[in-house]
């Protein structure tokens, strides 16, 4: 048995008796009840499981929990305070960028990271950034609109 896994999740230090083969997505959803991160494929194809590791969008279904040792994991539960929403989330609601919503936490994580790094992305940059996330409901149209709107301060 290896030593407990030490990792920060949404700003809180966590110690977990995490087996070596534990996948980060399972650690989050099954062990820590952070169910906002979704499981769509377990294969790195849908992006529903996107979280940040040290701020970088990462597919938690392809990540061993142990590889986050000593690092900062941020999930959808950790990007907006309390009952509030961040700009991206507000824009997603307002623009109708979430239909069934299953893909949405993944898109929000991807888009929030994009706007943090590039506050005024071009449409192409938005499309490129979200191309690892799959949405079957919206045709991406309103998702792209929402990201553009969030980037321009929610006025467009």
């Amino acid at each position, binding site marked *: 048995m290896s030593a407990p896994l030490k990792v920060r999740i949404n700003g809180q230090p966590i110690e977990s008796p995490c087996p070596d083969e534990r996948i980060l997505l399972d650690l989050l959803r099954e062990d820590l009840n952070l169910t*906002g991160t979704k499981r769509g494929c377990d294969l790195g194809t849908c992006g529903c499981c996107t979280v940040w590791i040290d701020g970088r969008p990462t597919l938690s279904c392809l990540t061993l929990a142990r590889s986050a040792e000593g690092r900062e994991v941020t999930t959808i539960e950790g990007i907006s305070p309390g009952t509030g929403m961040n700009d991206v989330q507000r824009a997603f609601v307002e623009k109708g960028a979430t*239909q*069934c*919503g299953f*893909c949405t936490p993944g898109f929000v994580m991807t888009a929030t990271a994009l706007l943090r790094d590039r506050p005024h992305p071009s449409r192409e940059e938005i499309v490129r950034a979200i191309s690892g996330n*799959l949405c079957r*409901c*919206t045709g*991406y149209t309103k998702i792209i609109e929402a990201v553009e709107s969030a980037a321009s301060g929610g006025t467009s």
Partner: protein
Amino acid sequence: MSAAEPPREYRLLGGRIPYVEGPLKVTGRAEYTDDIKRPGMLVGGLLRSPWPHARLRAVDVTKARAMPGVYAVLTGDRYPTPFGVLPITHDETAIAVGKARYIGDIVAAVAASDERTAEAALAAIRVEVDPLPEYADPQMGLGPVAEPIHARGLAGSNIQKEVVQHFGDVDAAFALARHAIRVRGNFAGVTHGFTEPMATIAEATPDGRLTVWSATQVPHYLHRALSEVLGIPMHRIRVIKPEVGGGFGGKSDPLPHEIVCAALALETGRPVKIRFDREDVFLTNHGRHPTQNEVRIAADAEGKILAYDIQAVIDGGAWSSFGTVTTYYNGVLAMGPYRVPNFRYRGRRVYTNKPPSGAMRAHGGTNIRYSVEVALDELAEAVGVDPFDLRARNALPPHSTTVNEFRITSTSFRACLAASRSKSGWDGKFRKLPYGEGIGLGAGFYISGSNSPIHFTPKMPQCTVHLKVDMDGGIAVHCMQADIGQGSNTLLAAIVAEVVGADLERVHVIRVDSDVSPVDLGSYSSRVTFMMGNAARRAAEDLKGQLLRAASELTGHPVDQLVVGHERIEVRHRPDRSVSFLEALHKAMEKVGALTATGAYSSPPMGGTFKGARAGTAPAYSFAAYVAQVRVDAETGVFQVDHVWAAFDCGRVLNRLAVEGQIEGSVHMGLGQLMGESMNYRTTRLMNPSLLEYKILAPQQMPKVDCLLVGEDDPEGPFGAKEAGEGPLVATLPAVANALYDAVGVRFYDLPITPDKVVKGIEERRRSGRAWKGE
């Protein structure tokens, strides 16, 4: 996005109403089935058949049962009662009985303390089989076969359903015709591709009740199937629908794993969860049927349609599912948007040893619409008339009856044609764009709710809505309609708020729970806006009446002098004299306590009396005329759809955000089927059961979509509205195919249209010596 939005007559309806559960979804707080945990919950596992067709000689579970951590092992003999979504074709069982019918069929199930133990237990089950002949090609099942997949196959064949219809005199029409077009199409199967894999939790408790949480779009049919198969009266079963991550038809059948999960809960007395992985989802399928069809169209010299003659052979896979409906729809959904005076159809749906096909968005209408619209494009060329003019010439008039006795009420098809023609700049582009670029037209027609409910015993409305308002002033809305992302909760809340003048945040749509939600038949056949909308409006009118009577007492003005204002009830022309919503409510409550109100919807009688006359009858129909513009790289065959002008008639638009969302999503899904989605089989083995190999369109591939919403009010729709959930898909595919023809002069009859087919088509055309647009 549409630019100019017409003025509105309503406070909320007709605007862009953000989805009421949006804030929960964007923060990860919306609860889907797999997010739920129950104390002491076990993991359910399924053993799937690796054989396409095999008689089960023995399923030995002794070893599995004895393993520590294993709480139950089930085989087919425990709950052998057959079920199925249609009462007339109950041919499924929760777990295979007697034989396995496809690779993926469930042959045993376990409940264990954790996933690993469940897997080990499944691996310890020994199954002995006699392999049976494997049927992959539906054509091979049309006559008698050595081992029919189901005993109920027609005359020893694998035919599940045959439909033969003839209205008018098709042969006479062809004899008179100046033009006869024939196209043959071959369509690969496609699947829904919703992002949330199915999941179910079941819990049986010592009070004799069973609670089932499931990712379903039709909670009521699941409720019925659980009761039938498990032998428990419906009132002792409680079905809860958490948030559902997309359905598109794939979560509309009661599915075997849902029943297995409940059975395992009954066996163990513990909560059990079955969670699908993506391969399970693909093997469960119920997607669009692989189909071969032939469409013959007879027309006069001006291109007026004289007759359709249609045949279809439909690959059903291992079970019936919705197949009887599918078989009808592949013919009768060709009845619009044109007048077809003579019509003949023969459709056969054939069992094969593949994952079952079922209902998928624009069920039964997509493939036939494709073939018809491609054929009409050919007809326009043969007649020498613009494709728009040809279609306008044949448009069904409003308030008419089709030859098979469909009742057509509102249609704004002509307005759709006018809108997409002008907005797309058609007249300056058609046959005028440079080689490799093209523009095409495709039209749509779809049911706005099926007139006949799948279950009609007992006789009851198709939807009922209950409202409850207590002294806190919150309006609780109960209804079993299933929001699966299309925004029906939002519409339900908005209709109630609109009618009683309340703020939207005052209205709470209560999660679907059969203990409190009155029956609605669920999210299929694009029925929800029309049927639930009408029921909701009636319930809200009931509540409004109670509030008005109370306000009358308070103000001393008779009810007919009162009007509902925003959060208040006003005396007409006397804005100074008004009472607030809460004042009226509290007055109304004095004698009865919390108010309750109810509303229901039943569609009116319609349709002919011949066999199958009800199939395709609907209280209204949606119409569409889409133009697509494409660019083709003639060297590689790769093409991009740049722009779709989607003119759509959904009657009055109630939530512009949702209608646009449905159209954009439909265009995406339709393009997926056209450009590459395909369930690929090696004989009966599905070769691409993952989202890595089954490709859904990426954002880069999406065209710009202009939603042109031109519908007029429908006379019976709620506030004049009709469906917008499925109809928006069908016109997409032929519009693009016809645009490809305009671009490179090649017709494509088979789907998907992959780049290699484009290259081959161009080569063949060149070889035949036919040049195109000065290439």
